[in-house]
């Protein structure tokens, strides 16, 4: 029974922030995430991509229960999140953050950083804490001699390994990785990506991967959700999305990937320079001011969600059988 339920389910989840604009002026509402619904199955690696300010980190923070949704609900294993004690959830759900320089307490030793979740969750016996800590350190490739070291003695890659060890020591089911490699150098990034893939196999993990590096996403994920101004505008399995992006924003994102290939020029991205504000999102489709393929209806009406099997799309170009072949063929040539 449990296995048929999705591990995480989001139902119309929104999050607003109230921004003070002055003593006498009314507060403004920043709608960071606007009714997002999706399911995450066991074993998935779901990547959330989008530009900065599109709400992907807010979404991740809601999944971690650091932020409460303003409306909508998040079901964990079929049960609403707030019905269960926080300890139970943190045993199942852990996070890895972007910057291993700020996510580790500089005054604690590596061993106490890694073992803290264990001690919070009631393992008091110091011998077994030590044993478990050394075991997980070995798994993530940290030498045992670093046990009593402090984070400032470690390199960036080693610090990120500490963060991974801390996340995995409770044997969680799902790990939220918020830009796990963007603070790292290329050669270290590949080590961490390999480690994340190994750990997924070993512990049967489900990942939610927030990233703006599409190369990393393509390599790791099996499902991709593209976010734009608080909405998921396209969601599909990774191969389909990379082979045939439908939403004009997804097309622009994928077009801007630069592989190290001297035969290709700098990609032409057909997006305007105007940048939308989440405080004042455009009417209709939020993307229409920058969209090169907009049609009259785009600034009038929020597009409906189109479901096509596993694929989810929000774009007027494809609604009601308007899916014109011209756009499709153009997209595949990008």
């Amino acid at each position, binding site marked *: 029974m449990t296995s048929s339920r999705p591990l995480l389910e989001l139902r119309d989840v929104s999050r607003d922030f109230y921004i003070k604009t002055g003593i006498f002026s009314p507060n403004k509402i920043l709608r960071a995430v606007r009714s997002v619904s999706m399911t995450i199955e066991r074993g998935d690696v779901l990547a959330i991509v989008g*530009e*900065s300010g599109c709400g992907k980190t807010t979404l991740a923070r809601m999944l971690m229960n650091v932020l409460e949704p303003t409306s909508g609900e998040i079901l964990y294993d079929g049960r609403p999140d707030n019905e269960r004690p926080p300890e139970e959830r943190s045993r199942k759900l852990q996070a890895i953050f972007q910057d291993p320089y700020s996510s580790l307490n500089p005054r604690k030793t590596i061993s106490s950083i890694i073992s803290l979740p264990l001690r919070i969750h009631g393992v008091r016996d110091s011998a077994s804490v030590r044993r478990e800590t050394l075991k997980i350190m070995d798994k993530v490739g940290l030498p045992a001699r670093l046990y009593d070291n402090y984070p400032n003695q470690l*390199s960036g*890659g080693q610090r990120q390994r500490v963060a991974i060890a801390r996340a995995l020591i409770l044997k969680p089911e799902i790990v939220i990785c918020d830009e796990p490699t963007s603070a790292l*150098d*290329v*050669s*270290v*990034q*590949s*080590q961490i*990506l*390999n480690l994340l*893939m190994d750990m997924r196999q070993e512990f049967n993990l489900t990942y939610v991967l927030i990233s*703006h590096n*599409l*190369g*990393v996403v*393509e*390599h*790791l994920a099996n499902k991709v959700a593209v976010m734009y101004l608080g909405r998921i505008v396209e969601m599909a399995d*990774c*191969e389909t999305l*990379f082979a045939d992006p439908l939403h004009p924003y997804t097309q*622009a*994102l994928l*077009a*801007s*990937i*630069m*592989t*190290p*290939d*001297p035969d*290709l*020029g*700098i*990609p*032409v*991205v057909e*997006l305007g*320079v105007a*940048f939308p504000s989440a405080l004042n999102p455009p009417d209709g489709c939020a993307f229409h001011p920058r969209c090169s393929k907009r049609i009259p209806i785009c600034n009038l009406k929020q597009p409906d969600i189109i479901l096509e099997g596993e694929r989810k799309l929000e774009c007027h170009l494809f609604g009601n059988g308007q899916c014109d072949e011209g756009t499709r063929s153009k997209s595949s040539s990008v």
Partner: protein
Amino acid sequence: MASSPYVIVDELTIDIRTANGVLHAVSNVSFELPQGEVLCIVGESGSGKSMTALGLMGLLPGMATRKAKRLVVEGRNLLAMSPLEKSDFLGNRMAMIFQEPMTSLNPCFTIGNQMVETIRRHRNISARDALTQASKWLEKVGIPSSAGRLDQYPHQLSGGLRQRVMIAMMLMCEPKLIIADEPTTALDVTVQAQILQLLSALQRELGLTMIFITHDLGVVSRIADRVAVMYAGQFVEYGATREVLKSAQHPYTRGLLKCLPVPGRSARGAHLGTIPGSVPSLTGDMSGCGFANRCEYVAPDCLTSTVPLADRENEHRVRCLFRPEELISGRTAAGATP
């Protein structure tokens, strides 16, 4: 004049005094760049690429010392310039653009204010003319309705727009040499592509010579005429972009290219290549090849002898004792012959 290179850097060395001794941030970097070409310096953090740029501009922090045989730009010797000559030259004939546009713009002044200040430092023109110039350049870098923009403060602009403003500000005095230190790293991928497109178009239109610093091999491949791969303060590989990326010879460059997940090329979910270990300490005396401790092809000679940046065919220079076909992994300490 036209035939001699526009930029000549000869044995540029930058040392930094630290509490633990002297740190060799940049060792013996030499290159020549003809007018109108783009050189990309690529490397990981701490490889000395930004220090090279700052050293060229003479903007090094106080505890750093710069030594060089020659530093020539536009036929002028940068080493022999007085401070006044230098401040006339910098910003005017050669200009620099930095990574984070928010920290390089002053938050207390409007865009227009800052742009006018730049141009009036170098040109004797009225404030009104300077504002007209500023709005002309903003349009040139693709910022529409530029007259209104001039009254805005940096925080009112998005990251991409700020970087465009920086580019406009840098180009206002029409410098001929541009040093760009990771100008797109802080930006989103779509904006990055737009900014690169803009920089590259302006570079061609105005015939600019550009030194472009980045850690992203993807960016390098699309914008550079020549590439220098930097590791531990040294150029380890130098040559035409196509040469270096298509037939990389140094084990470090080859390793870097294998580390990258490339959509459509690297098998999804498969293990990526790695470069084990980490960058060596640059403090104290260094002997042998800087990459030896991470190199899978290391031989005894690598640890002891100084490795020169050797010329190979097609103006390709590589700092390695061996040619790629001579690289044997797991060489034993005893029987190593090149």
